[in-house]
């Protein structure tokens, strides 16, 4: 079965510092991968997605992610974190059988120090 692992439960960075959130997936074929962000009590906002092609994908809010098939990873990066980036971040892979569903990781909570 497909799965997504986000090994870091919490990450704390200083404002202006760089950020990398880790995501590893388990999927037999070429995966469709997503990163979503969630503010407290809110729904999920799509940051970026990877389906095929260029393995470095750009998203909103200055985020980017790199797909590495050899490492089964899809890590999220941002060169300079802003205080407003503090939120929960979820990596997800699409599982397509008769349905179209996202398999989410358990999330990484980002805390930003002033």
């Amino acid at each position, binding site marked *: 079965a497909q799965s997504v692992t986000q090994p870091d439960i919490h990450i704390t960075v200083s404002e202006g510092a760089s950020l990398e959130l880790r995501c590893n997936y388990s999927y037999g074929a070429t995966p*469709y991968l997503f990163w979503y962000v969630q503010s407290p009590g809110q*729904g*999920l906002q799509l940051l970026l*997605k990877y389906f095929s092609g260029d393995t470095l994908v750009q998203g909103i809010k200055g985020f980017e992610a790199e797909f590495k098939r050899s490492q089964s990873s899809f890590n999220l990066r941002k060169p300079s974190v802003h205080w407003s980036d503090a939120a929960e971040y979820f990596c997800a892979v699409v599982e397509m059988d*008769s349905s*179209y569903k996202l398999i*989410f990781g358990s*999330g990484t909570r980002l805390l930003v120090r002033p």
Partner: protein
Amino acid sequence: DAGVTQSPTHLIKTRGQHVTLRCSPISGHKSVSWYQQVLGQGPQFIFQYYEKEERGRGNFPDRFSARQFPNYSSELNVNALLLGDSALYLCASRGGTNEKLFFGSGTQLSVL
């Protein structure tokens, strides 16, 4: 343009009661999915409906049911509520072959 809308935003029920959650997809989207997000965890897939037919069901008991209406809106029903059903219930819609799911803000259900 309106996004995915869910109602109510918050709900408090007691054990054994029944609850109905509602979702209106983005205009033109024919697929609606439901996810349950327990505090501190990632969302888990419950159902997907497309053109009023169930396309997929996650690992949830029969107490959970859903349906999709001709206008593509959807209801999620949960019977015989348990304390463990307390969660944020998210609805998502998808249009055509677009791979993106658009999520609503969710319904926060508390079971006492």
